[in-house]
């Protein structure tokens, strides 16, 4: 009743091709953005911003990047955290060595450097596929870990190998309070998501999807696998690089290579599997599931006044979290984004399903 598209006619190509063709969706998105940009800064607490929303948004950007590679282009990667690390250390070195650069430029350059490294490690994808490729990208993970731990230049010869960047400043605006950090990350996330949406619905994205569905057939209809695969690696690593820079500068404030270890790569892969492969919305759902749910589970016993020990609470957290992952994968193997789509389908017919 509320969510019907009857009477919404598309009278031009532009109207037919817009990102959100249904008017209710547009209203919903507008309301969501107004809520996120205008209302949230006033009602959120520091904890909400720093520990839940900011990590959620940053990892959602990284998940979008991985989703472009895995979900849209069909190339499995276990090295996302490595590309995040490249982005983080690139941004750190740019800020330390070229202090007059604007942080926005630093962010873009960090993404581009990560993109280059991504292309380099994407070259094997031209020859190998599937699980073999996953193993090859795992090499990126270990190589990058090793490089940032051993090559002192990248950490500016820090005695402990841990780096700590100066505060972010953009046109005189110092991003230091939780609200400022939140707004900055949110802005980046919105721009990056819009970019990704336009990429995947254009000819580049169609090329990726053709490669994903069957690369031989794609080649036959004139899509060059070299270009498509490497561009997917480049774009994916660009996203990971930007997310890595944000993770280091805004979320952690000081980090060591361990912050970008293989666990983070696996977590990102879980995010897109649970959220939904080949869906940008799914990247957000997955990030929310992996980032926020464990923290809620960890704190839930205290809210209900259950006097259980810290150790038991974290064991329970791990157990319930694992069980939920299995539950969602069984109920809906296509991810939370698919559940969302089903929900929308139902809503169109509600309250008179046929």
């Amino acid at each position: 009743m509320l969510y019907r598209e009857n009477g919404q006619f598309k009278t031009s190509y532009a109207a037919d091709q817009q990102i959100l063709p249904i008017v209710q969706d547009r209203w919903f998105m507008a309301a969501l953005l107004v809520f996120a940009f205008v209302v949230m800064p006033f009602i959120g607490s520091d904890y909400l911003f720093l520990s839940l929303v900011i990590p959620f948004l940053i990892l959602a950007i990284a998940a979008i990047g991985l989703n472009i590679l895995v979900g849209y282009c069909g190339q499995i990667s276990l090295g996302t955290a490595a590309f995040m690390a490249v982005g983080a250390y690139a941004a750190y070195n740019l800020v330390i060595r070229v202090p007059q650069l604007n942080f926005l430029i630093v962010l873009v350059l960090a993404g581009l450097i990560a993109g280059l490294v991504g292309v380099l490690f994407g070259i094997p994808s031209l020859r190998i596929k599937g699980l073999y490729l996953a193993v090859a990208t795992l090499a990126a993970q270990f190589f990058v870990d090793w490089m940032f731990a051993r090559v002192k230049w990248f950490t500016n010869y820090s005695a402990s190998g841990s780096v700590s960047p100066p505060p972010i400043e953009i046109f005189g605006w110092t991003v230091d309070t939780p609200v400022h950090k939140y707004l900055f990350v949110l802005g980046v996330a919105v721009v990056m998501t819009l970019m990704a949406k336009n990429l995947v619905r254009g000819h580049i994205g169609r090329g990726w999807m053709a490669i994903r569905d069957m690369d031989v057939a794609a080649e036959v209809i004139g899509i060059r696998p070299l270009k498509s695969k490497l561009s997917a690696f480049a774009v994916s690593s660009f996203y990971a690089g930007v997310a890595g820079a944000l993770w280091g500068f805004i979320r952690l404030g000081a980090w060591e290579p361990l912050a970008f270890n293989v666990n983070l790569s696996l977590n990102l892969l879980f995010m897109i599997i649970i959220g939904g492969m080949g869906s940008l919305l799914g990247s957000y759902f997955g990030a929310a599931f992996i980032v926020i749910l464990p923290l809620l589970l960890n704190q839930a016993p205290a809210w209900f006044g259950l006097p259980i020990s810290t150790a038991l609470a974290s064991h329970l957290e791990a157990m319930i979290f694992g069980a939920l992952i299995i539950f969602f994968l069984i109920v809906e193997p296509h991810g939370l984004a698919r559940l969302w789509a089903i929900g929308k389908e139902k809503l169109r017919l509600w309250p008179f399903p046929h």
Partner: protein
Amino acid sequence: MSKLLKTRVTGMVAAGIAAGLLTLPATSFAQQKAAPAAKGEQFFPVLVYRTGAYAPNGTPWANGYVDYVKLVNAQGGINGVRIAYEECETGYATDRGVECYERLKTRPFVAAVQPLSTGITFALTDKAPTDKIPLITAGYGRADSVEGEAFPWNFPLMGTYWDAADILVQHVGKLNGGLDKLKGKKIALVYHDSPYGKEPIALLQERAKLHGFDLMLIPVTHPGVEQKAAWLQIRQNRPDYVFLWGWGVMNSTALREAVATGYPRDKMFGVWWAAAEPDVTPVAADAKGYQGLALQHGAGRAKVHEDVLKLVHDKGQGTGPRDEVGSVLYTRGLLSAMLQVEGVRQAQLRYGVQPLTGEQVRYGLENLNLDAKRLEALGVSTLMKPLATNCRDHAGARSARIQQWDGTKWGFVSDYYEADNQIIKPMIKTSSARYVAEKKLTMRSCADEISAAAPAAAKK
């Protein structure tokens, strides 16, 4: 039927998720506001790890810390101000540690925070000045944070890793009949590949240059259960000494590998985090002869332990098992809590007997003066030497002894060593100056503060 049921279930789940996502910010926001500590209490956040690869070492520390807080409360609080505390599990992971910190810092009257992880310390060092919450890192943390001018909020009380490495070199020098005899010797550092393990490298390199010994750096990746490659290197190169900078399961694994490689345990020296019961008991008799630093205290019970047993454990309030009381890491946790309590007590002298903010407690920590009489009164006189901090020295003490595992218990085999300030001080100066420049901060001036504080002290 089943298809219908399935779609219905999935539809419900979808609706549930949607509802959950929409209400999530609201509920967690409400929760944050809904958990205040009772008015008039000083709040101690307790970052612990009772699970994961480092749990065997993290748990006794946490138990000692919490037991001491309970003891102070049982004795009526800090001059009558009770302590509220809450544990948060970090699992030794930096991002979870930061989350715990953000969760607990919102409470009123947070005194100070002790992360018990060098990685978390680095991340929180970045946040402490904005939040105005002091960071106590008793026996760990950044070595250069001793410099109070550059790190006003960090307190590496009782000594840093540079002190530890320095003392170990002094000790092996003494075994050889003088530091100059170390020329041409080989020393291997087997270290946890994290900020914690890398922290001593700078000092050891400095000392290696000075005395002409060879330094072999052998990293072990987290969590340290796989060390075959590291010990193969040791077997090939046969270093004269091995310094072990491990934590958690890495230490016992290293000792096992030493047994397997046939490396003499009495040539192995652990830092004070690698010289506790959980590190050697899994290897037990085979670890006999292994030596480690003692951060002033070793194992064994002092008067304060008797108090804990009487006022906490006998009342059924004990946090951990009773026979853990007096073990090395338990005592370290206990002393860590004690130092924080004394910081609050010192700050109360200036700001009055009431719950204090982190900023006020910072003053107390910077002006700690635990003399022999005070230690006696606290019941810890056998555990540590007098300790006094000031604006320029946030560690307060830099001495340690060597202890040896005889197969069943730890015992001291050396007298106190003092870390050599002539080597460490300039390193701290350079390193902290670089930190300040990199972070675009400004150094505060201790000279000004000391002269400003002098009249106030005279009045007291």
